[in-house]
C-alpha cells in the first residue's frame, strides 16, 4: 500500500512537517539538514512545479542513499534553469546528457560503478536519471525502454509538466487532450491537443515488468518521499513519474502550482499509484472528490473550453477519462482517509 497516515496529530500527516511527530517519522523536506539538492538562485519561473518536484525527489534519494548518489539529467527545463554555465544549482554529483540519451548515460554510470566495485576501487554509489516529459516520453523513449528491458540498476524520474515548456510550450506525447500549446492551438473543429493520441509512460514501464513503477505529484510530499525511498531500497530498473504543474505552460497562477497537482489527483485526471513487476500494488485514494472542471478552470490552456459557449462535450470527455482512471485504479474508497 501507499503511504497511509497512522498517527493523528492535529493535521494528520498531510503537512510537510509536524512538531508533534517523532524525528524518525518526519519527512525529509522538514529536516533542517536536508540536502537542498537543487539550491536557491536557479532560474525556474515563479512557482515552478518541476524545481519543487526535483528537490523533493532528489533530496529523498540522497537521504536514502546516504549522500552517495550521481544524477544524469536530460536536456530540458530542469537542466537549462539549473545549470547555465558556469553556475549550477545542483549540490550533488550531476551530469548533463543529451536530450534523448539520459537513460543510456545513467546505464553507463551504473555499469562503471559496478566494475569499479568489483575491482574494489569504490563503495556503493547509486544512480538516478531524470528528465522532463519531452526527454522521457518522446525523445529519450528508446533509451529508456532499453534501460528497462536490460533491468539496469537506475532509478529514472520523469517530471511531467505536459509539454516542451522551455522552448515555448510545444506539445509532447504527454500533453493532455484539449490542452492548448504552441503547436496545438485552440482553433478548428477540435481545438487544442487531439484526443486519442499520446501515451502514459507509467503503464508502458509496467509492461516491461521492471521491479518498481510509481506515479506521484508535488501535492503529496509524504507519498512522493515514500515512493522514492522505496525505489532506492530496490535494485534494477525503477521508474517514478511525477506530475509537476507548470505555471507558464498551463497558464496558471504561480501560487496555484500545488493546488493544481492536488486537483489533478483528486479529480482522477492523474492516477497516483505504485506497481511492482507490472502489477499495481497500491493507490493513493481520492480524499475529496471533485469534478474535472475545478481543475480545468484554473488553467488558461483550457480557457477555450469555457468561452461564451462552453465546450460541454469536450469537458464531458475529459470527465469520462478521469472516471475511467478512477474505475481502473480504484481511486475512490468509501473509507478514504
Amino acid at each position, binding site marked *: 500500500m501507499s503511504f497511509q*497516515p497512522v498517527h*493523528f*496529530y*492535529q*493535521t*494528520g*500527516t*498531510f*503537512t*510537510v*512537517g*509536524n*512538531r*508533534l511527530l517523532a524525528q524518525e517519522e518526519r*519527512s525529509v*523536506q*522538514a529536516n*533542517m539538514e536536508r540536502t*537542498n539538492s*537543487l*539550491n*536557491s*538562485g*536557479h*532560474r*525556474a519561473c*515563479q*512557482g*515552478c*512545479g518541476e*524545481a*519543487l518536484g526535483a*528537490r523533493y525527489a532528489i533530496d529523498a534519494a540522497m537521504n536514502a542513499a546516504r*549522500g*552517495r548518489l*550521481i544524477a544524469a539529467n536530460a536536456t530540458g527545463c530542469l537542466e537549462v534553469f*539549473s545549470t547555465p554555465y*558556469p*553556475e*549550477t*544549482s*545542483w549540490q550533488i*554529483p550531476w551530469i548533463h546528457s543529451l536530450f534523448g540519451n539520459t537513460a543510456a548515460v545513467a546505464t553507463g554510470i551504473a555499469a562503471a560503478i559496478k566494475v569499479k566495485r568489483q575491482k574494489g576501487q569504490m563503495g556503493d*554509489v547509486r544512480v538516478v536519471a531524470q528528465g522532463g516529459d519531452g526527454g522521457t516520453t518522446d525523445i529519450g523513449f528508446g533509451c529508456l525502454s532499453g534501460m528497462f528491458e536490460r533491468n539496469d540498476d537506475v532509478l529514472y524520474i520523469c517530471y511531467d509538466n505536459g509539454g516542451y515548456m522551455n522552448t515555448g510550450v510545444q506539445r509532447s506525447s504527454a500533453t493532455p487532450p484539449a490542452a492548448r500549446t504552441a503547436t496545438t492551438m485552440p482553433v478548428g473543429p477540435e481545438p487544442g491537443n487531439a484526443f486519442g493520441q499520446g501515451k502514459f509512460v507509467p503503464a508502458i514501464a509496467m509492461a516491461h515488468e521492471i521491479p518498481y513503477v510509481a506515479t506521484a505529484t508535488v501535492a503529496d*510530499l509524504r507519498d512522493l518521499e515514500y515512493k522514492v525511498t522505496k525505489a532506492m531500497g530496490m535494485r534494477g530498473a525503477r521508474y517514478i513519474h511525477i506530475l509537476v504543474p507548470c*505555471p507558464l505552460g498551463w497558464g496558471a*497562477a*504561480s*501560487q*496555484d*502550482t*500545488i*493546488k493544481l497537482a*492536488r486537483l489533478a489527483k483528486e479529480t482522477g485526471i492523474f492516477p497516483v499509484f505504485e506497481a511492482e513487476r507490472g502489477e499495481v500494488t497500491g493507490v493513493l485514494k481520492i480524499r*475529496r472528490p471533485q469534478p474535472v472542471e475545478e481543475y480545468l478552470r484554473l488553467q488558461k490552456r483550457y480557457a477555450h473550453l469555457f468561452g461564451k459557449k462552453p465546450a460541454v462535450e469536450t469537458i464531458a470527455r475529459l470527465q469520462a477519462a478521469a472516471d475511467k482512471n478512477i474505475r481502473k485504479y480504484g481511486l475512490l474508497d468509501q473509507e478514504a*482517509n
Partner: protein
Amino acid sequence: MDKPFAITLDPGSSLANHTGSWRTSRPVYVDRLPPCNKQCPAGEDIQGWLFHAESGDYESAWRHLTKDNPFPAIMGRVCYHTCEGACNRGQLDAPVGINSVERFLGDEALKRGWKLSAPAAESGKRILVVGAGPSGMSAAYHLRRLGHSVTVYEAGPLLGGMMRFGIPKYRLPRDVLEAEMQRVVDLGVEVRLNSKVDNILDTMRDGKFDAAFLAVGAHIGKRARIPAGDAAKIIDAISLLRSMEGEEKPLLGRRVVVYGGGNTAIDVARTAKRMGAEPLIVYRRTREKMPAHDFEVEEALQEGIMVKWLSTIKQAHESSLTIEKMALDDKGFPQPTGEFETIEADSLVLALGQDVDLGLLEGVPGLQVTDGVVEVAPNMMTGHPGIFAGGDMVPAERNVTVGIGHGKQAARHIDAWLRGEQYVPPVQREVAVFENLNTWYYADAPKTVRPMLDIIRRQSTFDEVQGGLDESNALFEARRCLSCGNCFECDNCYGVCPDNAVIKLGPGKRFEFNYDYCKGCGVCVAECPCGAIKMEAEEI
C-alpha cells in the same frame, strides 16, 4: 584536492544569482487573531494555550491560560463557550471542544496542585474589591499579580458570589469552586467575609484604599405583580438557589411551578427535580424565544421537566394557579387570548430576572445609574475617580465569563490609573477567517463528546451532570485546533518553496524568508494551512 565525492572542478554556485529581484510582491509572516480569542469575553488566548496542550505540555498550557483567567476548572463547567460558536473548525466538521479542554486543564491543575505565580514586586498600593464573585475575584487576582495589595469585602459567608449562590452544584461542584478561589487567596489576597459595604466612600477612607473595584452581583430577585391569596407560597428563584447552600433546604412541596424562561428558571426547575418535586416551567413565549441557552433547556427536558409555553400566571392561590394562554402576534410579542385554565401548584418560584443592590453607592458624587446599573467609561471607571465597576452591576451581558473579563480589564486600567497613566490595549490584529485557511492539510477528526451522567442520577442527585475528558481524548481534542492565523510550525512553507527561500530557524523559532532568492510566487501563502503568511506588494 579537498573536494566532495566525485567533484573535480569548483562549481560556480547559482547562489550568485539573486532571484529575489524578480519579485513584485513578497510573503510576510503574520499572526492573525483567531476568532475564538476574539470572541472570548474573558480575553483568553485560546489558540495560544491549545498550542501548548497539543504537545501534552499541560502545565505550560495552564500557565498560559491563567494569564488571562485564573478559573479554568470553573470556566470549563459554566462558561457558555461562545468561542466554540466562532471556531473556524465548525465550518469544517465541528468546533474544537475548547470548553472541555479548558476543564481538563483546570482539573489537572487542581489534581497536580499547580500554583499561580506570585507578583514580581510589591507596588505599595492598596485596592479595595467589593464582592467575591467571578468579577471581583478575577480583579483581585490580576491586581495582585501586578503587585498591589488587595482586600476583598464579601457580604456573604463564603467566596464565589453568584457562582455559589446562583449556579447549582450539579453544574459546578463546590470543591472545584473553593479550590480555584483559594488559589487566588493564596497569592496573598486578603478576604473579609460577612462584610457588607454600606458606604463605599467610608470604607475606602477607613481602609486607606487608593482605588476600588466594585463587583456586586445581581442577588435581588425581581418581583411580578401577581395577585395572590395569603396562603399562596411564592418565592424568588435566586433566594431559593441561595438557600440551597445553607443547612436548611427550602420546602417547596411536590408541585413546583417556575415562572420565567431564562437560565435561572431552568436551574431552579432542575434543582427542584433533584429535591423530589415535579417542576413545571411556565413561560409566556415559545421555546425559540426562550432566553435560556438551548443546551440547558435540552438537558432539563431530558430530565423530565415539563414546560408550559405561551402562558402567563394571572393569580396565585393556596394550591393552584390561574394561567392565561398567550398567542404571538405578527411582531412576535405574546398577547393575551382571554383563555384561562387552572393548574395545581404547591409553590410558585419567580425567575424573572435579578437586580443589583446599589445601596453602597448612595451619596457618591459623579455616579450615573441607568436602569439599575452603573455607567462606566471604556476604562471601567465610574463617574467617580478611583472607583471602578464591573460584572452584573454595569451594562453588559450577565454571565460568569463576562464578569471575569471585566475583572481583568478593570485591573489593567486601575494599575495604569494608579500610575497616572492610561492603559492602551494592543491594536487588535486582523481576524483569521475561514478563507485564510487551507483546510486540505487538516485530517478529518470528529469532536469528542463529554460523558453525561445517567438520567436517573440526574433526576435524583446533585452529582455533576457533565463529565470531563481524560488525558488521551483531551489531547485529541486540543489537536483538533486549526491554529487559525498563527504559525504552528508545520514546515509547509519550508517544504513547498520551489526556490528554497524559506529558512527554518528550529523548534519554537519558526521561519524566515530569504528575500535574496524569494521570487514571490505565493505558493507558501496558498499552502499555509492556518493563514499565517500573507502577500504584500513590493515598493517599486
